[in-house]
């Protein structure tokens, strides 16, 4: 029975390129898409050989493919570079099959998809990424050196006996600014690192991380006390994370300490396993000024979002952008809501879903 499909018409009208060559490398058939892409007329095409339409490196690979196909093999996703009539290079991805007549392999038929644009975009993205990383690395490294020089100069001034009290205050402010710049550079480096070459997650104790960070944060605010209230204990809950998990809690607790004007800053941390899910839910609630609805999303601006918004870097800081990037890298989620629903002025509640390191459903941890 005749096939209901007109294969010739199908191939002729395909948008992918079809090329059939004999085992000695002569072109035997090309479809309309191939002619259009390569710029040859049908007669010209029929006079071509593999060596004339492939770049030298692709020609070599193609001849190897012909040898394999002669033995009956098929080749999937073979990358080849063909040279158009005007000399441009097309990057193609092809699937190659043997052409069989009377039980004998007599040629190679291939269908190719033009991936030139995709490859060029990938190469440009790779180059751009490498350039950005190089420049960022160079800049942050040199900025840290400059910070060292400024910091040491300020410290020398502070150690100098002749400085007046007023001048001492000014110099201390300078030291604080150097610290701020150092932290900002550190956060930028972490953001870039997580987005480009993230570490492999490992099993971490949530309590260890939280309590270590809380102690560090309290020492950063000598005039304030952190009143951390939680039922979480060390050794109770483990999550899949990495060394950046401490930056998550550092970012959240630092914000609470910074924006809550009270001398004693209360922060509640509630942790519970979510049954039938791979997540642990962590709620970090503070009693500070809260976050207005219109800012709830923008405080988490991603690196790609903040590149156009200088005020994000200089004003809001990138602390919460870093927090979001880290949590999402773990396959988790973060969002912020009002601690008291409907009244943002009573404080913020950050809700995190972190991946638990233990399997199986469980109750409250």
């Amino acid at each position, binding site marked *: 029975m005749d096939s209901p499909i007109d294969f010739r018409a199908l191939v002729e009208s395909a948008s992918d390129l079809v090329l059939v060559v004999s085992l000695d490398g002569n072109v035997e058939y090309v479809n309309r898409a191939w002619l259009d892409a390569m710029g040859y007329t049908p007669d010209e095409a029929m006079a071509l050989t593999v060596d004339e339409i492939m770049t030298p490196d692709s020609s070599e690979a193609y001849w190897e493919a012909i040898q394999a196909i002669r033995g009956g093999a098929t080749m999937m996703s073979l990358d080849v570079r063909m040279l158009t009539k005007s000399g441009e290079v097309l990057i193609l991805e092809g699937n190659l099959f043997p052409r069989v007549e009377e039980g004998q392999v007599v040629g190679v038929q291939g269908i190719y998809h033009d991936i030139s644009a995709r490859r060029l975009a990938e190469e440009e993205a790779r180059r751009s990424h490498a350039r950005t990383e190089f420049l960022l690395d160079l800049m942050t490294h040199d900025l*840290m*050196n400059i910070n060292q*020089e400024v910091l040491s100069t300020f410290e020398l001034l502070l*150690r100098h006996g002749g400085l007046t009290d007023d001048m001492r205050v000014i110099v201390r402010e300078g030291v604080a600014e150097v610290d701020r710049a150092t932290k900002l550079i550190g956060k930028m480096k972490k953001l870039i690192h997580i987005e480009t070459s993230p570490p492999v997650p490992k099993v971490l104790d949530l309590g260890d991380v939280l309590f270590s960070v809380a102690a560090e944060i309290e020492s950063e605010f000598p005039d304030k006390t952190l009143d951390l209230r939680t039922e979480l204990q060390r050794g109770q809950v483990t999550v899949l994370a990495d060394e950046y998990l401490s930056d998550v809690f550092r970012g959240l607790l630092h914000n609470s300490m910074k924006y809550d004007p009270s001398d004693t800053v209360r922060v509640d941390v509630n942790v519970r396993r979510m049954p039938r899910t791979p997540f642990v839910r962590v709620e970090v609630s503070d009693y500070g000024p809260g976050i207005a609805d219109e800012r709830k999303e923008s405080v988490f601006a991603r690196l790609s979002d903040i590149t156009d918004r200088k005020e994000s870097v200089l004003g809001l800081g990138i602390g919460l952008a870093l927090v979001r990037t880290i949590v999402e890298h773990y396959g988790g989620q973060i969002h912020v809501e009002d601690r008291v629903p409907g009244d943002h002025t009573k404080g913020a509640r950050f809700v995190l879903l972190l991946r638990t390191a233990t399997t199986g459903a469980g109750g409250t941890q």
Partner: protein
Amino acid sequence: MMARVFIVDDDRFIHKVLERILSFAGHTVVGHAYNGKEAVEQFLQIRPPPDIVLMDHRMPLMNGLDATREILQMNPSAAIIFVSADETVSEEATEAGAKCFLTKPIRSNTLFDVIRKYAPEAVTEAAPG
């Protein structure tokens, strides 16, 4: 008596500020090198050997890791302290034999504490501070 310190860094201003800070605390800078190769060559010439080597990492001709390995091969008891902005080499630095790794920018008190810790025989009195 305070420590005799050898500074290795390709940034000349770093030499200047570190020397000022160290001198303020009574320590003596006994040598300056601006790349790892110079550091290895000079280390041999400083007599007696320095109590402490402050070693940067990213430098021309030879980096801090290689210089550390070579110096420690010549003198296994050398006390080398890494002072670098490149945290990515902190583990390698300690594996190479550095006593510790300090990330720039460092506070002067941190530097004095580390010198006290790794050159206790040289530091016989408390640095001002």
